[in-house]
């Protein structure tokens, strides 16, 4: 009886007893979720347009952040470094299309997936070679990102909102909205969706796959850069960030591999679920459940809705 009480009642009693703590936990979860969502968004962009699961998305985040900080350390002014980093991400997209995707055109998906593994290790090597392997501090102040926190009094306690977290949420929302409009309402957006649906039909109406791939990899690179800046500002910039990219997997399973809104909702569910789980149920299991809870949520989800919340349901006629 005691264990049932601890699982089903006690956490909710705690939530009711200290609502300010609950709000704080929800907020922390939301912020983590937004960042997961940003990483997942990078995956979704590339998966939608080329059917490639880009294992290198995580390292692209690190690589973008490293390039930014590295350039600054070499004496380039912060905002110029930002522009140059965007240019580097474009160069990367262009090179990936030329060297990786084009020679592998019409190969099975698994080959392309393996190629992105190769790309991951190449980028790790290149990043270490050029910028060194030591963790770096994100240049948040130079990029005029806010610092400090707001403390809001509520429920007899207070909730602390880091300004950088608010900025992250705002930037992520703006990015998602812009991408949504771009995908739904413009010629290139339509071409992207066309390529996602059928390569041969897209080719037949004169869409160049090469061009579209450069566009999506560049978009994914920009998303990676934004993610890198935000993560980097909270912790620091190192190759350890790459591990966090794996958190995007449960997010994708939840949201569906092809849905931009799915990435956002999935990210928030995972982020919030993780923090709430850790805070209220973690002690029962000796804590540290944050690192695996997301995968368990995803696993349960797979049983009931394998295509994800917003994914396209696959119906095949036989």
């Amino acid at each position, binding site marked *: 009886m005691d264990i049932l009480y601890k699982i089903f009642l006690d956490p909710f009693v705690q939530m009711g007893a200290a609502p300010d703590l609950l709000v704080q936990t929800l907020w922390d979860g939301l912020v983590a979720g937004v960042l997961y969502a940003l990483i997942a968004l990078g995956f979704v962009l590339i998966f939608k347009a080329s059917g490639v699961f880009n294992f290198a998305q995580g390292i692209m985040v690190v690589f973008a952040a490293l390039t930014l900080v590295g350039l600054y350390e070499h004496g380039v002014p912060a905002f110029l470094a930002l522009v140059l980093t965007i240019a580097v991400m474009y160069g990367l997209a262009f090179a990936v299309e030329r060297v990786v995707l084009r020679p592998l055109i019409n190969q099975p998906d698994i080959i392309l997936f393996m190629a992105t593994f190769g790309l991951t290790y190449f980028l790790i090597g290149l990043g270490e070679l050029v910028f060194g392997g030591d963790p770096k501090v994100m240049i948040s102040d130079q990029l005029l990102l806010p610092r400090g926190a707001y403390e809001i009094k509520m429920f007899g306690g207070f909730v602390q909102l880091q300004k950088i977290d608010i900025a992250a949420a705002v930037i992520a929302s703006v990015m998602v909205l*812009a991408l949504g*409009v*771009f995908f739904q*309402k*413009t*010629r*290139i*957006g*339509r*071409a992207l*969706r*066309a390529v*996602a*649906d*059928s390569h*041969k*039909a*897209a*080719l*037949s*109406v*004169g*869409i*160049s*796959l090469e061009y579209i791939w450069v566009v999506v990899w560049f978009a994914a690179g920009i998303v990676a850069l934004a993610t890198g800046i935000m993560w980097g500002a909270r912790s620091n910039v190192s190759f350890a960030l790459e591990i966090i990219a794996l958190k995007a997997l449960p997010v994708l399973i939840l949201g569906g591999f092809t849905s931009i809104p799915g990435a956002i909702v999935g990210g928030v569910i995972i982020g919030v679920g993780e923090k709430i789980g850790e805070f209220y149920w973690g002690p029962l299991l000796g804590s540290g459940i944050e690192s695996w809870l997301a995968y368990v949520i995803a696993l349960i989800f797979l049983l009931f809705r394998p295509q994800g919340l917003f994914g*396209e349901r696959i119906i095949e006629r036989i």
Partner: protein
Amino acid sequence: MRARGSADVAAGEVILSVEDVSLAFGGVRALTDVSFDIRKGEIRAIIGPNGAGKTSMLNVINGFYHPQRGRITFQGKARTRMRPYEAARGGIARTFQNVALFRGMSALDNIMAGRTLAMHANLVFQFVRFGPALNEEVAHRRRVEEIIDFLEIPHIRKVPVGRLPYGLQKRVELGRALAMEPQLLLLDEPMAGMNLEEKEDMSRFILDVNNIFGTTIALIEHDMGVVMDLSDRVVVLEYGRKIADGTPDQIKTDQKVIDAYLGVAH
């Protein structure tokens, strides 16, 4: 309307010529030394038994396949290798045997996708959907609405094409090809799997496209009645080789063609 198979296009200008084209996949020879031409304004049928290389021929023309040998001259420009989007840019549009639509998109968006090449506003304007990009959307939308009216499908404009019945999907696919305002339209079995009524509708659209827009059409079709009614000239393939070429009347009485279709005692 002029009579089909009449001589008035016979003397016309050649829009596309295929010379000695050979295509093989490893040891499988899909096409062997095939030569024929398509004249401006005609409806040219490509027929033949299953596996004769008809679809391979279309794939060669629109750049999906690159023949190992031979030459293709389209509107005076010769080439052996070309990418599909370059073919599209040059004015070649096509439909597919097993309908290749953008399934997640509405009928309208599918046909709008056919306008991709005609639209030029740059990426930045598109991103903010402002000024030139917006005007352009509106102008092209008007052209697309005309095509939708022409094909008599205004009621399914907003329906995701994956949900449409097969006959309508084929019509949307034709609409997407027409939206490109092509010089040469390639139709791969436009009537496969259709019932009689749908076939009649589709025949009417093909004739109208040819008559009203003056579009040159090359089509693959198995229904001999349709082929004989629609086409000006017919080329017949068997095992990747050309066995006959001429007006429908000539083809009907050609001994080789009859043998190919009915089989012959060896």
